[in-house]
């Protein structure tokens, strides 16, 4: 089945990752996936601005999600919570007790899958800021449509609107040369779905998203190597 933009069902839109765009931040990345684009900046590890946020045993991760226009509302707070937990999972936070790592995400354009795009941008920016990471994480959105076999990876806004159910899934992907990843284990880090799915459809969706996330992570890893050739 061919999609309106000529992609196959399991194909992800063209991905671009530019790093170090912002000079004042410790790290930044702009992640583009087709018509969706997010800019992420990372500041830190730095001193905590409020002692109430300080943790004596690990760094605190703070995520701010700014929509393309308008004020942040409940949806943005939900995204912040999800991205923060995913970042906490990959950052080796115990290395910087009492410190703060702040991730700011700005939506540049939104054509579907903005949460996944923001999460990927955040991870790329963390890499750019050289924050010690346990592994990479990558997120992919998926949509389920009513017509047969209607599982679309990385849907556009139009496809999302027409879908019966959508979901965004983040994984700790299988990395080339990665040491401790456990074979073909799923490694689902976070998930969020909307709409109605059967159990099997959900599991298929997660599985397909996993495949996509592995490809995205490989790309992220490759782009990191290109940016820092000395690291090899």
């Amino acid at each position, binding site marked *: 089945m061919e999609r309106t933009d000529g992609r196959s069902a399991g194909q992800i839109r063209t991905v671009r990752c530019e790093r170090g765009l912002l000079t004042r931040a410790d790290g930044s990345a702009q992640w583009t996936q087709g018509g969706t684009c997010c800019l992420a900046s990372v500041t830190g590890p730095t001193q905590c601005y409020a002692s109430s946020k300080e943790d004596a045993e690990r760094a605190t991760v703070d995520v701010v999600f700014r929509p393309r226009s308008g004020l942040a*509302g*409940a*949806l943005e*707070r*939900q995204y*912040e*919570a*999800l991205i923060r*937990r*995913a970042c*906490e*999972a990959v950052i080796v936070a115990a290395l910087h007790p009492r410190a703060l790592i702040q991730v700011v995400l700005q939506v540049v354009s939104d054509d579907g899958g903005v949460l996944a795009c923001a999460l990927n941008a955040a991870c790329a920016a963390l890499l750019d800021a050289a924050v010690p990471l346990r592994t990479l994480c990558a997120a992919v959105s998926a949509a389920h449509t009513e017509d047969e076999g209607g599982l679309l990876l990385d849907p556009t806004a139009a496809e999302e609107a027409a879908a019966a159910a959508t*979901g965004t899934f983040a*994984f*700790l992907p299988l990395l080339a040369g990665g040491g401790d990843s456990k074979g073909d*284990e*799923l*490694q*689902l*880090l*976070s*998930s*969020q*779905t*909307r*709409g*109605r*799915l*059967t*159990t099997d*459809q*959900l*599991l298929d969706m*997660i*599985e397909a998203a996993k495949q996509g996330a592995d490809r995205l992570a490989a790309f992220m890893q490759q782009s990191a190597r290109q940016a820092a050739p000395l690291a090899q």
Partner: protein
Amino acid sequence: MAAAAAAGQVDADTFRRLYPDDYLRKFVEQGLRPDGRPLAAARPTSIGLGAVSTTDASALVKVGSTTALAGVKCEVVPALPEAPDAGRLVVQVEMAPLCSATTRPGRPSEGAQVLTEQLSALLGSVVDARQLCIDAGKVAWAVYVDIYVLDADGSLHDACLLAALAALSSLRLRAVSIDESGRVQTGAAAAAAQQQQQGERPAGQQERRLALSCQPVSLTCGLYRGRLLADPTAEEEPLLEAQATATLDESGAVLGFAAGGTAAVGQIVVVQCLEAAKMRGKEVRAMLQQALEQAGLAADADAS
């Protein structure tokens, strides 16, 4: 002997405060939870309907000591130009400052906003807004569902969703009548006005129930040292490696699967969560049915 017992008592309590992780581990290794539950069991749950008489429908739900109070109020409002044939369902979750020692008054907390967002999306798909239309393009119902978390002891999504579902299941939209001058009356006055108007164009509607497309019930499960703990408490939640909330309806369809944590989970865990949520859903729906029957709403509940 008594003194030794007292000393032992203090030690267990101090141990719990100082080493919460070790404390929980010792229990979980024995296949138990600190409150005496088996790993896969949810806490005792109760549903009380009609707790607040100033609302159109209300429900007080307790899951263990987690307490959520949902109140529904309906107002007749002008229809929106962008959706002339639909009403509005507005869901709001508030964490009352008294729900835990760490909740502060003022700006709604992140937790409350995340719950608001999750439940609005979920309930928006359960309640078809078109049935809230009274007179297309003119007036419609606005149904406000306010959920107050009164005691936050973990797994808030489950308790809030159940409170909202129970309140909406027992909701009766009042009779509405609109006379020629466009004056809107609700309740008993409207019913009387409709009696008078017989034969003319019946502007307005009879008292009716809200139709729900399904009965979603969620269960939160936590992953702790490779084991799955159902319905975690506030004490257990920060110690969990990952947490997943699965929302299923009576046909077993998944309406939401929200997972997050500091560790990744495998497919087996996802399947186990969905399975546990399905079992829990059966149990909770039976409880809800019983509560509705007690409130004298059962016959209609079957029809809807």
